């Protein structure tokens, strides 16, 4: 009776009225589910599908840059208008429809209830609504390719007047649909974020105190709060831009007394915290993986937590470094230079704490661990190159060059792909009850990491040589066609093709393991956190033996008083060991 009661303790909240193990139809189970795990999968698979779209767009426009004017296999000739639409779609899709849904919505939905030991989210139907709105937003974005004038081509930052006036952007409907899609997507994440924070506040397993919550859950929560506190001004700006596009107001139109730079402030007030919204969950994933695979307690749990909160607060005071050359007051640029350089301190600190965790551990180089280690290395490169751009003097030279592109790809690729691959390979046995193939996993890892560096190191070099971004055909700019420059562009494009080809290995491994993989036990990695206490895959209600009680922190590996080198959170035991 008791176990049954646990599993269905919140039947009202779920909207299910059956009892016992009801057989749900396909639609109810996979498409209309209120189960947090299923919603997590919906977000994950939608995100993966959108990543294919993002990858296809970058393939088309990188081919145009390396071999201008050719007919790209699978796409055809890339016209100038196509080029703008492809670049814009690549940026928007990768950030709004890949990084955010997979890192926060998919992993947050899947992991939070399992890791804090409860049966579902607090608001399961709100959760379902969140995914449905997200799906509509993706459909609206894709639909914008098929309207008059084609998809929006004003870059993912959508600066007016280009985005506000159809006579400049030439996409009267595409720009409005783009804005609508982004707005819908924000509504979806707002609902999701409300759910995450409320669930972690009110539904933790008995005994789970503040410092017993796994770092990845903390990171998703801090990221959700950052998102909700920063998205308001952008929504305000989006409404104003929509009015400018459709109703003829002049909020951003200098001819009508408006101010185009105002949009940049509203956009980046969201846009910069957004970087940390996706960074923090990635950092959390890495923390989980390196503790498990170095069999060591996380070095300085509380430091990581407070550092993440500090990073979040500081991230609200750096946005104007995107406007150093937009005509802002140089005194203000000085202040934002200082805050921008300051924010590198907490982020570097987190990386150092992770390295300290590795020190002296018995490191196991499994596929997820390789990804986690690669994250630290590659992300540090992204962070270090950010220093050049944060200093307002150097930024005057580097602004709008490929140096900027290489910099933010060295941050976003580790976040949106390296950390996600780490998470998928690590939690795959829990998610689907099967092991992934390790050989294919390592092949995919090395193929991806090596080709990734071959794409973006050439772009750093090009950027340092002054290669301007947002150019469709470099043959029109003799200054940018100096000896060697086109060769570097071709090198980057070829490396991109290799990188894309290696993703086929991942997809093949994913699908093969899903059906034919070796069956996974409940706790294949000997990890401590609560999700490994649930069966693999966890059934509806997560913990068929009853909701767990927590007795210690999440990172008690290699504890001296214990024979096993791990000590799961739910096992009753002696005195709680000291934290920190």
């Amino acid at each position, binding site marked *: *009776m*008791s176990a049954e009661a646990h599993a269905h303790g919140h039947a009202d909240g779920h909207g299910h009225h059956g009892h016992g193990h009801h057989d749900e139809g396909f639609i109810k189970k996979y498409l209309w589910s209120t189960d947090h795990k299923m919603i997590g999968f919906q977000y994950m698979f939608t995100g993966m599908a959108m990543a294919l779209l993002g990858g296809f767009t970058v393939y088309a426009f990188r081919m145009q840059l390396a071999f201008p004017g050719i007919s790209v296999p699978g796409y055809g000739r890339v016209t100038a208008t196509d080029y703008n639409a492809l670049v814009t779609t690549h940026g928007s899709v990768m950030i709004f429809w890949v990084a955010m849904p997979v890192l926060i919505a998919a992993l947050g939905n899947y992991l939070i209830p399992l890791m804090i030991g409860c049966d579902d989210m607090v608001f399961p139907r709100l959760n379902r609504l969140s995914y449905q709105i997200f799906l509509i937003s993706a459909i609206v974005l894709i639909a914008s390719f098929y309207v008059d004038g084609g998809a929006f081509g004003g870059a993912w930052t959508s600066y007016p007047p280009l985005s506000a006036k159809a006579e400049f952007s030439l996409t009267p409907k595409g720009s409005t649909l783009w804005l609508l899609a982004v707005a819908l997507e924000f509504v979806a994440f*707002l609902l999701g974020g409300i759910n995450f924070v409320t669930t972690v506040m*009110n539904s933790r397993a*008995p005994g789970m105190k503040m410092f017993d919550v796994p770092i990845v859950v903390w990171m998703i929560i801090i990221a959700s709060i950052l998102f*909700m506190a920063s998205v308001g*001004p952008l*929504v*305000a700006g989006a409404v104003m831009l929509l009015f400018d596009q459709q109703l003829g107001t002049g909020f951003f139109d200098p001819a009508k*007394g408006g101010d185009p730079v105002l949009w940049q402030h509203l956009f980046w007030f969201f846009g910069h915290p957004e970087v940390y919204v996706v960074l923090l969950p990635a950092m959390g994933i890495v923390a989980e993986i390196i503790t498990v695979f170095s069999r060591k307690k996380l070095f300085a749990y509380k430091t990581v937590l407070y550092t993440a909160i500090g990073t979040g607060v500081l991230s609200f005071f750096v946005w104007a470094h995107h406007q150093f050359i937009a005509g802002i007051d140089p005194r203000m640029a000085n202040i934002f230079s200082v805050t921008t350089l300051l924010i590198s301190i907490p982020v570097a600190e987190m990386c150092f704490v992770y390295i300290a965790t590795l020190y002296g551990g018995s490191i196991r180089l499994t596929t997820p661990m390789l990804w986690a280690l690669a994250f630290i290395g590659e992300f540090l490169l992204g962070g270090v190159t950010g220093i050049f751009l944060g200093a307002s003097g150097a930024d005057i030279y580097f602004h709008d060059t490929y140096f900027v592109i290489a910099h933010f790809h060295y941050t976003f690729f580790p976040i949106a792909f390296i950390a996600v691959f780490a998470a998928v390979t690590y939690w795959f046995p829990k998610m689907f009850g099967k092991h992934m193939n390790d050989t294919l996993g390592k092949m995919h890892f090395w193929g991806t990491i090596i080709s990734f560096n071959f794409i973006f190191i050439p772009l750093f070099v090009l950027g340092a040589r002054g290669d301007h971004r947002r150019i469709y055909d470099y043959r029109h700019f003799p200054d940018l066609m100096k000896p060697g420059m086109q060769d570097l562009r071709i090198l980057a494009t070829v490396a991109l093709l290799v990188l894309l080809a290696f993703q086929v290995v991942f997809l093949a491994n994913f699908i093969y393991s899903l059906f034919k993989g070796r069956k996974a036990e409940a706790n294949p990695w000997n990890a401590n956190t609560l999700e490994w206490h649930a069966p693999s895959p966890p059934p509806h209600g997560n913990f068929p033996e009853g909701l767990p009680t927590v007795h210690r922190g999440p990172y008690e590996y290699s504890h001296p008083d214990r024979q096993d080198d791990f000590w799961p959170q739910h096992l009753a035991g002696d005195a709680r060991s000291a934290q920190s």
Partner: protein
Amino acid sequence: MIDALPHGTQAPLGSPAKRRPVVPSAVLGTLIFVVAEVMFFVGMISAFTISKATALPGSWPVPGQPMLPADATALNTVALLLSGAVLVAAHVSFRKGSPMAKWLVLGAWVLGALFVGLQGREWAALLSQGLTLTSSRLGAFFYLIVGTHAVHALMALVALGLSFVSLLRGSTSPGLFFGAQTFWYFVVLLWPIIYARVYF
């Protein structure tokens, strides 16, 4: 907010002792939503303030545009603040289990509806005097900010009306009522700031 049953209250006997939430889930969820909403209004109001502050000499107040009726709007402001106060009284009597609670909710609803009605009359007057969304920056920002607040007031009135109906039917589940209250206090307390920043 419809699934806003306080977490744990429906758990059957025999489940382990759940922690008692410090803040009920419905209120916490609404509060987080309110934080996002506050930042939304902060974005619009600061954009308006900057736009005013950077206006060229002689271009503000906008020539040829009517002044906003700051004095007449004081009445609307009083109606809305009173509505908030009545709702606080409703909350207190709900806590005591008094049957007065539902009538106080109705009172708060009527005062809130009065506010929205008075605002509508003001808009009609301003529109007839030539202040429209496209006539000037003042008009654009005025209708944007005040209109967004009005949309929120209407949403909150719907939520408050639903909780009145559920109280009338004798519901004692506080989820919807507390969530609606949280949102209504947000609408009420936001208004004086808009009034001070936009009308003067």
